[in-house]
């Protein structure tokens, strides 16, 4: 997906940028009105961070789907299926099955024991300050990689859809996206952000449903005929689209890479801080359960749509045309929309894709700001001696700081591999967060030392392995001689291992470190605290209540 910004000079502009801008402008206008209306009741920290815990399960489930179905899901998976066939499908399965971990082991227990952030749960019966610090750093690391991916995607995608070329102009686009996102989060808090996600999720799923029906109708609602269309269009070797192995089957190393990716995907979701934080926006654990059930249905059905859309793009647009188009692989879904419904459908789908990025970025920003203000500033720096409105003020300042960082990062990351950055965020979440979440919920003996070993071990090992992997340096396209790594200078090569996704090593390592760290420390877990956590997690006694206005 490095081809995101690869402009083909002789390619004609597809669609009308003016129509695209107009439709996107309408979306921004509507959501801004909603955000301003939603923000009128933002009084307390619970309002700002957790939307007063007043959303219903179905509303929150839709917002979760809005948060989760990022540009990588929509554009990335459609493109991957169109080009690589079955191997693209594997992503969606990992992304979906992962939700069972969240549903069965994490969502309700977390809602019952926490307040605003993941660290609330992790530090519940352990030493507050060191655990909050570690959990917050892990949160910021995950959010950073995720944010970078979305901003890089936003710059490239939107620039293409609006017909803006040149790095400087794209930088302006990224800055506009960033500024809009800051405005949403600053004004609307969690409530405004949630409404943006709900609106976006409905638009995205509805748009995908219409396109799916359209594609299937062209093939007499016979999926096998659609597959035949994709095989025929791909020409020689088109049969390979129907089975696995086209992308990941090349060498034993690429097979290991796939295994590593599969592990990171399935265990990453339940450790993603922006997903976990959404469970606090509902009044009870039962509503948290309903949220996840709704989210699983919406996300699952959406991924079934992308299966049709991906093969549909392959059949109706063709892999060659997709690869040659500006935006490369990521342009499969917009090109299919243009093929089906011309300028208007392209503009609609493009606006939805733009909205997707905006909503996900807003969700990530509020998570990072909450984590910094609530865990690092209020608990670690101020020792909890701070009024809640002071904490919210810090959160708002953090939103602006993160927004500016994301804009700068996005401008630098512009053109980098979006899928890699998202998978990286999943690997960090699965290594640094998930083991400690599970241990602290289910293992009585677990203590502070184990948590720190597991979180720092998972986080640092991830960062180190990625730095010395071919993703950062030393991966060269054998046919063209171009660099496929983040460092574009092929003479710089400090990669030491060939594994591209660190999950296969770091996730088991973090689980083991949690056990080792626990037994190396003499610290005993407090029976009172464990009783409180266990009873609260299963019964909801003493859990944070909804804010009544």
């Amino acid at each position, binding site marked *: 997906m490095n081809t995101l910004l690869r402009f083909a000079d002789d390619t004609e502009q597809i669609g009308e940028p003016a129509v695209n801008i107009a439709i996107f402008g309408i979306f921004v206008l509507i959501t801004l009105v909603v955000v301003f209306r939603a923000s009128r009741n933002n009084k307390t920290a619970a309002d700002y961070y957790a939307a007063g815990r007043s959303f219903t399960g179905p509303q929150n489930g839709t917002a979760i789907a809005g948060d989760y179905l990022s540009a990588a899901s929509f554009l990335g998976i459609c493109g991957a299926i169109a080009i690589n066939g*079955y191997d693209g*499908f*594997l992503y969606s*399965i*990992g992304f*979906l*099955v992962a*939700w*069972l*971990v969240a*549903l*069965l*082991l994490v969502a*309700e227990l977390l809602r019952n024991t926490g307040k605003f952030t993941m660290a609330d749960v992790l530090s519940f019966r352990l030493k507050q300050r060191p655990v909050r610090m570690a959990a917050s750093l892990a949160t910021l690391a995950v959010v950073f990689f995720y944010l970078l991916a979305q901003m890089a995607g936003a710059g490239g995608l939107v620039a293409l859809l609006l017909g803006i070329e040149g790095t400087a102009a794209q930088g302006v686009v990224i800055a506009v996206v960033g500024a809009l996102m800051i405005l949403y989060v600053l004004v609307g808090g969690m409530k405004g952000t949630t409404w943006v996600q709900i609106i976006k999720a409905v638009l995205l799923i509805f748009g995908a449903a219409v396109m799916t029906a359209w594609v299937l109708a062209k093939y007499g609602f*016979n*999926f*096998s*005929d659609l*597959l*035949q269309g994709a*095989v025929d269009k791909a020409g020689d070797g088109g049969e390979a689209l*129907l*089975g*696995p*192995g086209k992308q*990941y*089957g090349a060498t034993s190393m690429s*097979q290991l890479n*796939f*295994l590593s990716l*599969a592990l990171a995907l*399935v265990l990453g979701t339940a450790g993603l801080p922006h997903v976990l934080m959404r469970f606090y926006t509902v009044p009870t654990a*039962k509503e948290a*359960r*309903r949220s*996840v*059930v709704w989210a*699983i*249905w919406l996300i*699952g059905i959406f*991924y*079934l749509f992308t299966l049709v859309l991906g093969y549909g793009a392959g059949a109706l647009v063709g892999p060659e045309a997709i690869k040659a188009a500006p935006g490369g692989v990521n342009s499969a879904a917009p090109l299919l929309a243009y093929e089906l419904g011309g300028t208007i459908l392209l503009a609609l789908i493009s606006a939805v894709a733009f909205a997707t990025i905006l909503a996900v970025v807003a969700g990530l920003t509020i998570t990072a700001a909450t984590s910094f203000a609530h865990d690092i500033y209020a608990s670690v720096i101020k020792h909890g001696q701070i009024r809640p409105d002071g904490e919210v003020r810090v959160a708002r300042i953090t939103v602006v700081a993160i927004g500016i960082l994301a804009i700068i990062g996005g401008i630098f990351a512009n053109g980098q591999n979006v899928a890699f950055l998202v998978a990286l965020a999943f690997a960090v979440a699965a290594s640094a967060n998930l083991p400690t979440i599970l241990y602290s919920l289910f293992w009585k003996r677990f203590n502070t030392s184990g948590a720190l070993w597991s979180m720092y071990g998972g986080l640092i090992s991830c960062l180190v392995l990625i730095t010395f992997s071919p993703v950062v340096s030393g991966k060269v396209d054998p046919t063209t001689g171009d660099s496929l790594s983040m460092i574009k200078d092929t003479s710089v090569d400090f990669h030491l291992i060939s594994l591209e996704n660190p999950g296969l090593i770091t996730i088991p390592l973090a689980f083991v470190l949690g056990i080792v760290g626990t037994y190396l420390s003499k610290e005993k877990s407090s*029976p*009172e605290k464990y*009783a*409180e956590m*266990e*009873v*609260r997690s*299963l*019964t*909801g*006694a*003493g859990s944070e209540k909804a804010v009544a206005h």
Partner: protein
Amino acid sequence: MTDTADGFETDYQRVQRSDEFQALKKRFRNFVFPMTALFLIWYFVYVLLADYAHDFMSTKVWGNITVGLLFGLGQFASTFIITMVYARWANNKQDAVAERLRLHIEEGTVDGGAGEVA
């Protein structure tokens, strides 16, 4: 179960010790742990087949529908089924018990205990 030698016990510990809570916890763990093992094993069987058994997964069953596609759709089906089974089970078997225990604690009416929640 809980060390009560110092003669002081919180309401949470009292509830934790109760048969009703222990049964709730046991039912919960007996449901979610095997279910988690089941879907993870099924997922990794699928991943390993897709990763290493290309010929088998590319076998056509009907038209262009391959074994791999059916396995993949099977992952969707199993995810939806487990979700609904869990939600129905939790709604019917767990919620009422959890709610009763929660009210006991929040109203300070835990059997044999003072109302104070530590």
